[in-house]
């Protein structure tokens, strides 16, 4: 079920890719987008460890020494890729050269605040690149499950966990819905097939306006 949801979310998130975009994908569900890029989509993926032009996951036989992705696994590069230092990579990210970043989240709130790196009381793993990506991407889309595994609500009025970024999220894509963050709060744009607005609302703490052109998610 989790895996099915993840694929659904990733496929919908892949629709966010526009021709000409430079894109960063975070760990977790966002990384799955790499396997669902629409045919002919003209986009370049940055792997923030220092590769512009990340390709689909390589077969074992194609593994290149010293070519890994940001999650430290084997990687492939497309023709026209380039490799560089971490300092140069984060100059791209911090300098607003990334058109779109897709990240997973622990919590998002109606002001576009994001929490995705730390749960007090649990062992700290470190923020890695999350804070830089949140601060630097021109557009930040969250691709996550609507609630936690034990059904705790993640889309809140105010984040309760330590923040990754302040007012940085533009859109939230879950297995239930596509929700935009607007200056007036959240707007429900798309709803998963078979769900009611009421069902989405009950799984969401923050209030949501419903788009008058509310659509069904197509993946």
């Amino acid at each position, binding site marked *: 079920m989790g895996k099915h949801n993840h694929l659904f979310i990733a496929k919908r998130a892949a629709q966010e890719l526009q021709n000409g975009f430079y894109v960063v994908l975070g760990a977790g569900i966002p990384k799955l987008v790499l396997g669902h890029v629409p045919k002919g989509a003209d986009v370049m993926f940055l792997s923030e460890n220092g590769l512009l032009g990340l390709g689909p996951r390589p077969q074992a036989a194609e593994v290149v020494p010293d070519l890994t992705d940001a999650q430290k696994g084997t990687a492939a590069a497309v023709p026209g890729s380039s490799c560089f230092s971490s300092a140069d990579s984060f100059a791209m*990210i911090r300098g607003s050269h990334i058109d779109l970043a897709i990240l997973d989240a622990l919590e998002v709130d109606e002001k576009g605040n994001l929490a995705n790196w730390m749960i007090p009381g649990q062992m700290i793993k470190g*923020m890695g*690149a999350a804070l830089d990506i949140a601060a630097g991407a021109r557009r930040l889309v969250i691709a996550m499950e609507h609630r936690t595994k034990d059904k705790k609500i993640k889309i809140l009025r105010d984040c309760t966990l330590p923040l990754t970024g302040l007012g940085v999220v533009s859109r939230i894509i879950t297995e239930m819905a596509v929700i935009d963050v607007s200056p007036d709060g959240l707007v429900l744009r798309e709803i998963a097939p078979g769900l009611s607005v009421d069902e989405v609302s009950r799984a969401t703490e923050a209030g949501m306006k419903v788009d008058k052109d509310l659509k069904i998610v197509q993946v």
Partner: protein
Amino acid sequence: MNKVIKDARTAIADIPDGAAIMIGGYGLCGVPENLIQALCDKGARNLTIISNNVGVDDFGVGLLLHKRQVKKMISTYVGDNQLFEELVLNGDLQIELNPQGTFAERIRAGGAGIGGFYTPTGYGTIVAENKETRSWNGKQYVLELALRAQFAFVKAWKGDRLGNLIYRKTAQNFNPQMATAADITIAEIEELVEPGELDPDSIHTPGIFVQRLLKGKHYETRIKRES
């Protein structure tokens, strides 16, 4: 100039207890493994290690943790190492976590003579606590300070005796900036070439940044995880 040292043991012989050392690498890629092993063998203690990750239990910086040689880590992501968690919980290891771009930029600043810089990263988060903030053109920034160390360990692919280095693929990562930000930079390489063999336009680390150079004994090609 000839910066070649016969082996890793000799190259690190003068590293004292309590030293701050930058160590290149991202996960298991671009890690100066021969220098780390030599430092383990030497046994210098109370070290401050500045490295993106803490390695795994039996590779990379993890080896130094295993031998309890480290007093403090400055890192960005430490989630891959079991022992690390134990040491921190027992109070045997201090940890300072930086956002990865801030970490890279602090090191670049240290090498480039920049005292500090204003970054948008971390504004409004606990990372910005007790730090100065200011805004330009409506955008908020946090002041972060330069980071330097007494030693840097870097891993490159090819190098010449002048200390010129080139890296391969994503093994570059933090190595080029760390090479600039230490009093003594020690580079280990896979292949030693003659000065002039590396294309001057393609050298990633000009020799000016490297004080000692050695050819690594062997290199383990590890893949951490099929992604």
